[in-house]
């Protein structure tokens, strides 16, 4: 083992997931040389953006010791509501403004979660399960339940914007959209918060032990509240990107994805008990899920087996460390 590797390198979930991805890519490239091209990579990257942003949020909640299943409902609510609002009052608004409003909607809904969890002290799973129904029910009852394909034109402009595009020598088309920048921005911002601010360290501390955090004077309620607001804001961003790129505000989309997103985060090594979770792991988990969802066929597994594959990956990815921990505990006596 080389010294620059972390001590627990070989037992980390990140390593396991990266290994599975590498293995997948090798098999895929062997069975279809066209797999490992910039086209595939840019396709997979595009498919990762919305899930990636949601996963970063979900990871933050897990680190703080909670769980959130309502973020998909927040995403769809923020996206649909801001689309409806702008279509009604200012259809020609520039997309950054629409995005900001969507993010604010998301943050406000997140604040509702935060209120119940931080200030009323209710269990996170139950609260977000409830608000999932509430947000979705409110959206579909009072805001609207029709798909809207005539979105403000600026949103379409956003979806057309590319950082790079081109055609490979083999004649395959590829493009890297602007929205990749959003994912990068979210990662950088979250990395900064988690690693470089006292707030971020407090999130880890609370996840490690709420009682200890309280005793040394960490503002537990404020920090928890921030987490849910931040996750809401990320969901608002993910939602509006989803709407813009899909060129449709569909109030029925996204909801139902929450457990897959959490699965991706957990695959990446975040623990449900709180205190553990890294951005690298989360992104690897997302990459694995996205690859399986999009490229399973390349290695000869029919698409109908996608669900089984993801399920088995989750069982393996969480089962191996769990089994190892159980054995270690038994050995220690």
């Amino acid at each position: 083992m080389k010294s620059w590797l972390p001590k627990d390198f070989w037992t980390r979930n990140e390593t396991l997931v990266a290994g599975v991805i590498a293995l997948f890519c090798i098999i895929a490239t062997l069975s279809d040389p066209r797999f490992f091209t910039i086209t595939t990579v840019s396709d997979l990257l595009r498919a990762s953006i919305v899930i990636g942003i949601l996963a970063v949020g979900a990871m933050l909640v897990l680190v703080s010791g909670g769980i959130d299943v309502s973020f998909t409902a927040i995403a769809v609510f923020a996206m649909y509501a801001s689309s409806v609002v702008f279509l009604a009052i200012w259809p020609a608004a520039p997309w950054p403004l629409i995005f900001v409003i969507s993010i604010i909607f998301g943050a406000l809904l997140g604040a509702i979660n935060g209120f119940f969890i931080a200030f009323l002290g209710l269990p996170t799973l139950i609260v977000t399960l409830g608000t999932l129904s509430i947000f979705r029910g409110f959206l579909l009852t009072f805001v609207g339940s029709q798909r809207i394909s005539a979105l403000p034109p600026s949103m379409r402009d956003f979806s057309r914007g590319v950082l790079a595009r081109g055609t490979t020598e083999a004649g395959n088309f590829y493009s890297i959209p602007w929205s990749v920048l959003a994912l990068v921005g979210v990662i950088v911002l979250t990395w900064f918060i988690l690693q470089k601010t006292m707030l971020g360290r407090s999130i880890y501390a609370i996840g490690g032990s709420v009682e200890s955090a309280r005793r040394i004077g960490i503002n537990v309620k404020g920090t928890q509240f921030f987490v849910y607001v931040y996750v809401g804001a990320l969901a608002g961003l993910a939602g509006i990107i989803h709407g813009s790129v899909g060129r449709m505000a569909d109030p029925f989309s996204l909801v139902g994805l929450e457990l897959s997103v959490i699965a991706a985060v957990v695959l990446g090594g975040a623990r449900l008990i709180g205190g553990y979770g890294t951005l690298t792991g989360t992104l690897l988990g997302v990459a694995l899920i996205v690859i399986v969802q999009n490229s399973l066929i390349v290695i000869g597994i029919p698409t109908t087996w996608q669900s089984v594959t993801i399920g088995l990956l989750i069982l393996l990815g969480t089962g191996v460390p769990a089994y190892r921990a159980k054995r270690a505990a038994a050995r220690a006596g």
Partner: protein
Amino acid sequence: MSPTRDTAFIDLRAITKRYAGVTALDSVDFAVQPGEAVCLAGENGSGKSTLIKIISGVEPATEGMVLIAGEDHPDLNPRISAAAGVMVIFQDFSLFPNLNVAENIAFATQLSTHQRLFKPRASREIARKALDRIGVEIDLDARVETLPVAQKQLVAICRALASEAQLIIMDEPTTALTEKEVRRLQGIIRMLKEEGVAVIFVSHKLAEVLEVSEKVVVLRNGKKVAEGPASKFDTQSLAYHMTGRDVPEVPPSDHTAGAEALMEVRGLSKEGSFEDINFELRAGEVLGITGLLGSGRTSVAKALFGLVAPDAGTITVESQEVPTGDPQAASMARIGYVPEDRLTEGLFLSQSILRNVAIGRLDAHTTNGFLNMGSLVDEASGWLKRLKVKAPDVAAPVQSLSGGNQQRVALARWLSRAPRVLVLNGPSVGVDVGSKADIHDIIRDLASQGIGIIVISDDLPELLATCHRILVMRDGRIIDALDGRVATEDDLARRLAS
């Protein structure tokens, strides 16, 4: 006795605290000088934790004055108290298992500067300084969850020092430490005192902290019942003040040496835990197994009950071999095990006394697959009476009972199975002095009924008061066997530490 009041770091004057009609503290005066170590003793419910809560600002006093460094604080809260230099080290240390040593030490300090950014380098520097101050070497990058208990405690002390502690309050500081670690802790305390840091020990186990304390304050039922220089107190007199009565310990009764061998353990080994453990237990005998933390005593205790699977060796009860590594098999062989940590391992706190007792012997109360509720209640009530448990009724949740009564409920569960062998791991840990003597009576009584009892403990007076024979373990091996009726505490302590 104490110098003038003006120099005191903490000065509580006539503190009274009432909770909904219950007086937890009744006009208590309490002062600590800089550089002084005070031992605050008292049974559970005597008011010592309330006193600590008032000093640390967690609870306001109903009446009286709190002066810190000569300044009156009518609206004390945890932040003001911490800013003044009062640091509490709780029994669980309140560390963050997922963060590294440096961050654990420096977190509170960095928090108090109100900076928004986290500076890893500054954090390491703060931690390094604090560790240097007590002359300890711990890897700053190690995650705290990977550290042994004693190092965690040192990290907690360093955290207090990093926050410029003037007074460190330590709650049960020696419970989880080995003798050697206790010595090191005592050394560190002496050093801190020289630097003018005051220390308050809150403890059940008194002998170890008496040595480094200047003053002892004893609380009972919310009142200060004794105060004086530490040299004037010993274990006996402290126990007297804490309980308000003398607690004479009857030495173990003679057991018939010719009694049948009940349990035989041969060549029990587990790599890294214990090696070649051999002993036999006779009917009616109380056998002590002692050793420092890490000597393997707890692992052996668990192995006897199948909670740890040994690599080799046999356990036989009444000539029947018991399959190892299987608690159910051990329980079928009528071995009972009362764990050390009542609250997390021994009892189902939120559940009723009835259920806590009944869970030991459900099959005996089942007819045609259904539980016979009437006979369950009868059995549980019977045990409550026999063990003199003070409880309103069998439906009351166990968490509503006192420590001593809880331990009796844990015992009742196994007694209801009519065990042949009973393994008691730390039978009186966290039990107040009065109940402790009662539990020792119960142990002697059970032995006289022919049950073989194994007491695992590092509480030497307890071993001497109950055991016929004492096995001493070190590094996973049994190194000594003593006759409990002639051994002395000094003798035992020497063999343990050598």
